[in-house]
């Protein structure tokens, strides 16, 4: 309806292949980015950052990473929690061993370390496929959590077995620790997310991304046109783990501050992120964010509604929440198995075709 595509002709491949080839889309996206960067930071407070914004950004990043593996490359993984733990512990060790290290470097290195671990667990993907692979990734989940629990070196032999983020700055602003300002945390995560979302988009629209999708859609044909299966799958594992590792790092250092591995990075997190990806939409960058937003906001909404609105007991509310989440997921998968991204796309298509129905 609001689209006026007539007259938007492309004179170069670059503009034809742009992320947002339609001018109207570009305007909206720029407006949104400007809003997120220039307006929101002035209004954030502790509640908003902690309850909504940070989880949204961080899980968004994790979902994006998992979507690369599951949605683009077609390899199911249930090891997300474990990989996030790698990121978290890596950044803990880096922060405590190199106190001077810039937090950006810390996060990136944590991602890198996770990528290495992820590729290692991705090795079996050459021989096993589908659910067999999914179960194999569970091995990573349990093994990694066990490792971080078992070996004191990882948590610097602290009494509690927890890891706690020390105070670290980024460009002179306190980023981690209890007295860090909300807007600093928010902007830090937002910037990382924005940059890496762009990188992810660049990857999936380039050669590597096409190879991933080729493997996903028809692995034999892909191999016969020259895609190397192992390399391609491993690269997906590596890139995916990199993102997930960064998310784990941020979750620990910026968001929670202190972490006990079994609680925070358990199998439930693996499922949560997988749900975000599925509900958001497999093989869609924007879907990853929509899925993360949906599953971060829904429990908050449900809890507020049931406890504050209906006066339900918190334990009962928790049970009902679990039930409702389950029902919603089932409902969603029945109604739109391709996720929010598809709904988004359909809406967009409708607006583009307006007033025609198709």
């Amino acid at each position: 309806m609001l689209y006026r595509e007539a007259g938007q002709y492309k004179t170069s491949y670059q503009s034809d292949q742009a992320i947002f080839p339609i001018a109207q889309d570009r305007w909206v996206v720029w407006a949104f980015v400007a809003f997120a960067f220039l307006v929101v930071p002035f209004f954030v407070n502790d509640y908003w950052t902690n309850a909504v914004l940070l989880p949204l950004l961080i899980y968004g990043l994790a979902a994006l990473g998992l979507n690369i593996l599951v949605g683009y490359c077609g390899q199911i993984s249930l090891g997300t929690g474990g990989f996030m733990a790698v990121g978290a512990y890596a950044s803990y060790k880096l922060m405590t061993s190199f106190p001077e290290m810039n937090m950006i470097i810390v996060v990136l290195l944590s991602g890198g370390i996770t990528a290495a671990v992820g590729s290692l667990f991705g090795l079996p993907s050459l021989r096993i496929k589908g659910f067999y692979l999914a179960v194999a990734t569970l091995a990573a989940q349990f093994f990694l959590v066990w490792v971080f629990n078992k070996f004191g070196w990882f948590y610097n032999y602290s009494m509690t077995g927890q890891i706690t983020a020390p105070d670290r700055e980024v460009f002179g602003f306190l980023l981690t620790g209890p007295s860090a300002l909300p807007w600093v945390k928010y902007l830090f995560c937002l910037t990382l997310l924005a940059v890496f979302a762009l990188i992810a988009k660049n990857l999936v629209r380039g050669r590597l991304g096409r190879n991933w999708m080729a493997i996903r859609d028809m692995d034999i044909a892909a191999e016969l046109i020259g895609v190397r299966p192992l390399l391609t799958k491993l690269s997906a594992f590596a890139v995916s783990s990199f993102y997930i590792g960064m998310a784990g790092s941020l979750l620990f250092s910026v968001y929670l501050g202190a972490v006990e591995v079994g609680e925070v990075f358990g199998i439930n997190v693996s499922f949560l992120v997988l749900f975000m990806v599925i509900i958001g939409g497999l093989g869609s960058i924007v879907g990853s964010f929509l899925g993360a937003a949906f599953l971060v906001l829904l429990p908050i909404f449900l809890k507020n509604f049931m406890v504050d609105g209906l006066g339900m007991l918190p334990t009962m509310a928790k049970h009902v929440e679990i039930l409702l989440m389950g029902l919603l997921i089932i409902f969603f998968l029945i109604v739109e198995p391709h996720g929010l991204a598809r709904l988004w796309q359909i809406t967009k298509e409708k607006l583009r075709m307006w007033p025609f129905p198709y």
Partner: protein
Amino acid sequence: MSAFVEPARMAGHSGMAKGEVLLRVDNVSLSFGGVKAITNISFDIVKGEVRAIIGPNGAGKTSMLNVINGFYHPQEGTIAWRGKVRRKMKPYEAASNGIARTFQNVALFKGMTTLDNIMTGRGLKMKKNFLWQCLHWGPALTEENEHRRKVEEIIDFLEIQAIRKTPVGRLPYGLQKRVELARALAMEPELLLLDEPMAGMNLEEKEDMSRFILDVNQQFGTTIALIEHDMGVVMDLSDRVVVLDYGRKIADGPPDEVQASQDVIDAYLGVPHEH
């Protein structure tokens, strides 16, 4: 309008001249758990020709193609590529050696558009590293655009401009086959294997496809090996025909000669064979 990929460059992978033996299959046998799919078959494919492999259902034609492009590994016999006996190789190695193929049942990447499917075929020719790809800028962008242009030339060649941005899953069967050919062509192969390129097509689509196959062969000098059931098509297109039956070779030669062979007639009529 510009000339499609220079003929000289397309044909020039190996610098082989037209008429030299490009691929030789020697005494190849292949079996699956005791079931013989191919028995002691030898033939060759000559640079620049259109070679047809025909035979009744279950004759081992597709298995033969699978052997040629490294998907199956024969238990016995050798395959010589450009005059050198080839070691056991992975399909993607065969691909980078200049062997491309299409499939009997369309094997497109269903979640991608026509353009992306064909672009995937350019993968082997693209060299820019991961970091540039992350940025999608500078050399990576230039490379992407260069290959897009090549792909567009193929799109133009096969006259599929109108479906450029359509997800291939939505295309009718005939067009899917054409996209698959486009994807194989994008690899600029020296040898193109076509597994029943006209299966399930109507007359008009068959005519189009025949024209494209001939154009590919003539314009780029691409050597083509094809499996096809439609005898009319085979006779029109191919320079030489090899006939398989029950995994054995029963004839090999120019189309008219093969057509006249008693063995071939028997095989097609279902006369029990004496092997």
